[in-house]
């Protein structure tokens, strides 16, 4: 079953604007990861934020995590056409000594040139 839920489901903005996507989850987590999926290509890992972290940066990406609200946001600054993709959050579920990622349905981001 899906744990993460992203919103909005779809987002269309002009190139150069900032894009913000949100993810909510239901159970406690060890970490939360964001992935990008370009049309016709596989998923690519973007950034991981640990449960004891509140904010993390990577280039034009900024991720925040609020464990009290069980939510995370992904901000892409100065968006580019190449950022057009679907963005997924995934939370870690630990099973014995192994883990698996629980995925949300994703946000489809379209950057208009």
């Amino acid at each position, binding site marked *: 079953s*899906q744990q*993460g839920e992203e919103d909005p489901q779809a987002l269309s903005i002009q190139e150069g604007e900032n894009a913000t996507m949100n993810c909510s989850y239901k159970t406690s987590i*060890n*970490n939360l*990861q964001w992935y990008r999926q370009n049309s*016709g*290509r*596989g*998923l*690519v*890992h973007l950034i*991981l934020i*640990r449960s004891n972290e509140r904010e993390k940066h990577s280039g034009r990406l900024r991720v925040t995590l609020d464990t009290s609200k069980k939510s995370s946001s992904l901000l892409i600054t100065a968006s580019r056409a190449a950022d057009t993709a679907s963005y*997924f959050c*995934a939370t*870690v579920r*630990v*099973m*014995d*000594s*192994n*883990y*698996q*990622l*629980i*995925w*949300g*349905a*994703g946000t*489809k981001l379209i950057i208009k040139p």
Partner: protein
Amino acid sequence: GAGVSQSPSNKVTEKGKDVELRCDPISGHTALYWYRQSLGQGLEFLIYFQGNSAPDKSGLPSDRFSAERTGGSVSTLTIQRTQQEDSAVYLCASSFSGTSWEETQYFGPGTRLLVL
């Protein structure tokens, strides 16, 4: 290899036929995962391998689905007596050990399955 590869990239089959999907993980990666992604949806976990064994088969939708992994490398996902609802993109991912909470999964391009 340089990345995770999957074959075929596209598969069209008739309802009731069996299909085999192949995944070749990154060399040296112990953990291998199969997911299914329906159109416009997120990923649905199917099965996970640690080496050649599958400690978690909880995501397999029915007994028509099975998977194996040999030599700790290549994995095949088999769907018997395919149904139209099996149509989806089947994604494979691998990670170094599958035992770290911070491990990145590396995904293949997927196999797009269409059952007519």
